[in-house]
C-alpha cells in the first residue's frame, strides 16, 4: 500500500491554477524528495495532504485513508514540519512539545527530542527569542513526537546553516531506518540528493519527472560530457566526431587551449580514436557527469523541459 496516493489532483484559487491534474505515489518506507522551484505548487500539494485546503478535483489518500474525511486519523499518525509557520512566541520549547504530545495522546521525552535536533539548551526559553534556525529545529522536534509512520517536511532546511541542514538530513536518514516514510519538499536539488530514494520534480503544478536521483541524471544528460584538449581545431574532425552514433553533441568549448566538449552516451575511446584518425593529437581529456543543478534546471525551465 502506498503511503501517499495523489490522483488527478487539481486546485484552483479563483483564476489561478495552482495544481493541474497532479498524480504520483509515495511508497511506504521510502524517502521521497518533492522538488520544484518556489511557486510550483509544492506547498499547495502538502496543504491538501493535510486538509488545510480542499482540492478542486481529484483524489488524495494518505496512509490508505482519504485525506479529507480521515484527516484527523492521518495527522495523528503523521509528523509535520510545515512551511510558513510561526511558533508561539510566548511558549517555551518544552511547552510546544508538551502540546504536541498532549494533542497526539502520546508520551515522549521533550529533552531527548530536543537533543536530537540540538536545541536542548533552549528547552525552557520562550520561542519568541529563537532565531529562524532554532524555530526550525523546534518544529522538527515537534514533527518527531510519538514516532510517526509518516513525516511530511515542507522545506525543512529553511533557515538552517549548512551544518544544520546536514544534521537534518541525518535525522531523516535515522527516521527512514526506523521504518518511517519521509515526504520531503525542497527547491534545492542537492539537499534531496543525499537522502532521497526517489525524487519527483514539480513545475507549474505538474509533475514533470519522477525517478531516482541517478535515473534523473541519466535521463537529462544522455550520458556524460567528455572534454578533449587537442593540438589544433579542425572542422572535419568535429564533423567526424558528430557522426559517431553515441555522440549527441560536439562543440568547441575553447580555442586556447583547443578543447572540444562532447556529449557521449557510449564508448569514449571511439571519440578519441576518431579524432586521432583525423590527424589530431589528443593532449588531455576528462569526463564529467551532468550536475544535479543542470538536471533540475532542465526540468524546471521552459527551454530544457521535456
Amino acid at each position, binding site marked *: 500500500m502506498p503511503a501517499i496516493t495523489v490522483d488527478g489532483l487539481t486546485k484552483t484559487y479563483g483564476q489561478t491554477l495552482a495544481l493541474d491534474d497532479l498524480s504520483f505515489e509515495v511508497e511506504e518506507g521510502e524517502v521521497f524528495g518533492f522538488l520544484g522551484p518556489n511557486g510550483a505548487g509544492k506547498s499547495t500539494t502538502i496543504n491538501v495532504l493535510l486538509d488545510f485546503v480542499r482540492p478542486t478535483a481529484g483524489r488524495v489518500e494518505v496512509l490508505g485513508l482519504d485525506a479529507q474525511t480521515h484527516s*484527523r*486519523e492521518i495527522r495523528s499518525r503523521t509528523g509535520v514540519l*510545515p512551511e510558513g509557520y510561526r511558533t508561539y512566541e*510566548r511558549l517555551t520549547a518544552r511547552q510546544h512539545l508538551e502540546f504536541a504530545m*498532549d*494533542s497526539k*495522546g502520546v508520551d515522549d521525552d521533550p529533552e531527548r527530542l530536543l537533543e536530537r535536533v540540538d536545541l536542548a539548551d533552549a528547552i525552557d526559553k520562550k520561542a519568541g527569542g529563537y532565531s529562524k534556525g532554532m524555530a526550525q529545529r523546534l518544529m522538527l522536534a515537534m514533527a518527531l513526537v510519538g514516532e510517526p509512520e509518516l513525516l511530511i517536511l515542507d522545506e525543512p532546511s529553511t533557515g538552517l546553516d549548512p551544518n544544520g541542514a546536514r544534521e537534518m538530513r541525518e535525522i531523516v536518514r535515522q527516521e527512514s531506518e526506523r521504518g518511517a516514510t519521509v515526504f520531503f519538499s525542497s527547491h534545492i536539488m542537492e539537499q534531496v540528493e543525499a537522502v532521497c530514494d526517489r525524487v519527483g520534480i514539480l513545475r507549474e503544478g505538474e509533475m514533470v519527472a519522477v525517478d531516482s536521483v541517478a535515473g534523473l541524471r541519466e535521463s537529462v544528460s544522455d550520458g556524460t560530457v567528455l572534454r578533449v584538449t587537442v593540438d589544433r581545431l579542425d572542422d572535419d574532425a568535429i564533423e567526424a566526431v558528430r557522426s559517431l552514433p553515441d555522440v549527441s553533441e560536439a562543440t568547441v568549448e575553447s580555442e586556447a587551449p583547443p578543447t572540444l566538449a562532447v556529449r557521449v552516451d557510449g564508448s569514449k575511446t571511439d571519440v578519441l580514436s576518431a579524432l586521432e584518425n583525423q590527424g589530431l593529437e589528443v593532449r588531455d581529456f576528462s569526463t564529467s557527469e551532468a550536475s544535479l543543478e543542470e538536471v533540475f534546471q532542465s526540468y524546471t525551465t521552459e527551454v530544457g523541459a521535456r
Partner: protein
Amino acid sequence: MSTESESETGTGTADRGTTAPSSSINLESVRAVAKKDFQDSVRSWLFWGLSLFFFTLLVATTGVVSYFGEDIAAQGATTDVLVGFVSEITRLIIPLIALILGWKAIAGERESGSIKILLSLPHSRKDVLLGKLIGRSAVLSLSLTIGFVLAAAVVAVLLGGFDVADYVGLLLVSIVYGIAYTSIAVSLSSLTRSTTIAGAAMFGVFILFYVVWNALTSVASLLADRGVPFFETISYTTEMQGQEVELERLPDWVYFVVNLDPGEAYGRTLTLVTDTDMIELQAQLNEEMFGGELPFFLQDWFALLILVFWIVVPIAVALYRFDRVDL
C-alpha cells in the same frame, strides 16, 4: 462525542462515505487546544495591561463608593450600591477586554501561519474553535475574578462587610457576559484571514451595541412621533405623585429588539441573581407600562437566555463555516 474509532477500514482503501470524522469534535483535543491557548494568552502583556486598567477602575470606584458610603451602609444598602456601580463599569469594560482578547484568536494564527502548527496535529477545526473559546474565556474569567476579589477586599477593609452572595452572583453573571463577547470575538475572528478586518469587525461590534443599539429607542420614538407604520405607540396609565397619568410607550417589538443587546441582557440577568433594589425599581416601572405584567421577553429569565444566545449562536455559525474554508 469523540468519534475516531472507525479508523480501521479493513480493506485498506479509504472510506469515501458521507461520514466526516475529520470535522468531529474530540473533547481531548478541545482540552489540549484550550490549555495551550490559555498558557499562551495568559502571558500577553496587552491582556494584563487591560486587566490592570480594569482592576484600577474597579478598585478606585468601589473605594470611593465605600469611603463616602457610610450613610448608605447605615441604611443597609451597601451591596446594592456596590453591585450597581460595579455592574455599570463591567458592562462597558468586559466587552472591551473580551473583544481585544479574542480578535486575533483565529485570524492572527491564520495570518502568521501558526495555525499550521495547531492543525498539523490531530485536531479538527471545530476542536480549534472550541478550544480557543474555552481558553480565552478562562483567561478572561481569571482576570474578572482577580479584579472582583481586589475590589471586594477594598470594600471589606473600608466598610467591614458586604453581601457576599450578591457579589458572587455579580461575578458569575459577569463571567457569562464575558463569555458571550468572547464567543462573538472568536467567531468573527474565524471568518477572515486578516487581523485588520477582524479588528475592524470587533470595532464594529462595539459600535453596534454601544452606539447603534443605544440610539434605537430614540430613533423608534422619532419614527413613532411621525406615525410611521409599525412604530405606533401604545398608551398606558401609571401613578405619579398620587395622580393617575396617561403615558405612551413604544410597541412591544421595539423593546424586544432593544433587549437583545448583550449589555441590556447582562443588566437584567443581574436582577435574577442579586436582590438589588436599584435595579428592581426599574423593573417595577416597566411592569406598569405593560399593564401589570412584563411580557416574557422582558422578564429576567429571558435575559439569561439572551446571554446564552450570544454564546451559542456566534460559535455555532463559526463552527459551521470554518470547516469549509481553505486556511
